[in-house]
């Protein structure tokens, strides 16, 4: 054989360089102010990414959509992990242009890398806000408080649920990405297989796809074809 030969490893390295070059290009265009991780810069306020209601239910807003890759479930796991919340208390709002951040396409295995990173940092910051808020009302240093199962507990056993802590406006602030997310070694929800959130609806016919949308006044078209022309031979006895 002639010509330069690449080993698999060398090829992989070269490719990694290429990929980095491509994916970094758009980020270099962003200003220093939007140097937030993942897609966080696309909507740099916390309430663009999550809401906490009075019952402690958390809604996550994502511009990424479920196309069978399990992204919504994985993003919910990331949120639950960072917020110390049972997965069942997280609900997802996805791809609604009036509600969710504009995260561009759902493609190229980027939902977790970019969307997940944004949610991870936003939820880490939200959890810290909840701890700080609880610290003020319990008059206990935040360091001594424990967040678990959607509630903050003080060393003396007093307990405040997220729902009771989260007042209106708590999340109306800039995302800073300054609160470090959890270390992977401490994950309890991320990295574990869970049942996908989208599957029950898909198995029972609940609306799940774009073509299931039925806005008022929508009309449907279908092509109506002419009956086929079937040639037929007619013989005239007189001529035979």
């Amino acid at each position, binding site marked *: 054989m002639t010509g330069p030969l690449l080993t698999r490893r060398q090829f992989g390295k070269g490719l990694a360089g290429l990929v980095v070059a491509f994916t970094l290009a758009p980020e270099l265009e962003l200003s220093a102010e939007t140097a937030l991780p993942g897609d966080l810069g696309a909507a740099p306020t916390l309430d663009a990414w999550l809401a906490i209601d009075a019952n402690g239910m958390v809604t996550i807003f994502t511009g990424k959509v479920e196309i*069978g890759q399990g992204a919504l479930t994985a993003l919910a796991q990331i949120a639950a992990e960072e917020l110390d919340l049972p997965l069942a208390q997280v609900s997802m709002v996805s791809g609604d242009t009036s509600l969710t951040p504009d995260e561009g396409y759902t493609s190229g295995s980027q939902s977790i890398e970019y969307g997940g990173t944004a949610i991870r940092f936003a939820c880490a910051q939200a959890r810290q806000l909840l701890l700080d808020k609880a610290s003020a009302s319990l008059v206990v240093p935040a360091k001594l408080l424990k967040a678990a199962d959607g509630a903050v507990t003080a060393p003396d056993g007093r307990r405040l649920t997220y729902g009771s802590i989260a007042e209106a406006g708590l999340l109306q602030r800039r995302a800073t990405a300054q609160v470090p997310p959890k270390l992977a070694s401490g994950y309890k929800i991320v990295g574990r297989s869970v*049942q996908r959130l989208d*599957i029950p609806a898909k*198995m*029972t016919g609940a*609306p799940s796809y774009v*073509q299931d949308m039925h806005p008022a006044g929508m009309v*449907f078209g279908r092509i109506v074809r002419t009956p086929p022309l079937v040639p037929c031979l007619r013989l005239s006895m007189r001529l035979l």
Partner: protein
Amino acid sequence: MDIVIEEEGDKLIERPDRPQGGSMISLDVNGKMHTVDVSPDTPLLYVLRNDLGLHGPKFGCGLGQCGACTVLIDGSAVRSCILPVSRAAGRKIVTLEGLGSPEKPHPLQGAFIEEQAAQCGYCSNGMIMQSKELLDRSPDPREEEIRQALAANLCRCGTHNNIIRAVRRAAAEMKR
């Protein structure tokens, strides 16, 4: 009411499909009677999805080749995308919604959820309805039978093994 768009000279004109008023068709879908005003050759799938708002059956190929549109008619799995609605009148139509709901799934639906037998989920309707027909006539099928019954239902994601596990799980569940 269907509207037909035709060319007349260099203009497009619209006219009602049936100038002489409606052919009202009565359909028994999931145990409920519906009367629809459509031309008799409309594929049943269009009526189920567009007129009745049922999203279980899917439009896949539109040619009866993929199985995504499968419904049960008098218990038989039928491709609703190529069945004229007039041929379904007076017969018992069951769609995926007629089997169960997210809160109260049919054992087959429950087994598909339990086995996570879907990636995109677009073929699931056909897989479940076809399996329903199978289990109704053969409650304890061998794996080979399941494979054969589902051979003409296409899944592009490659969830076949999960699907077969789900059908076996449902069969076991329903025997109890």
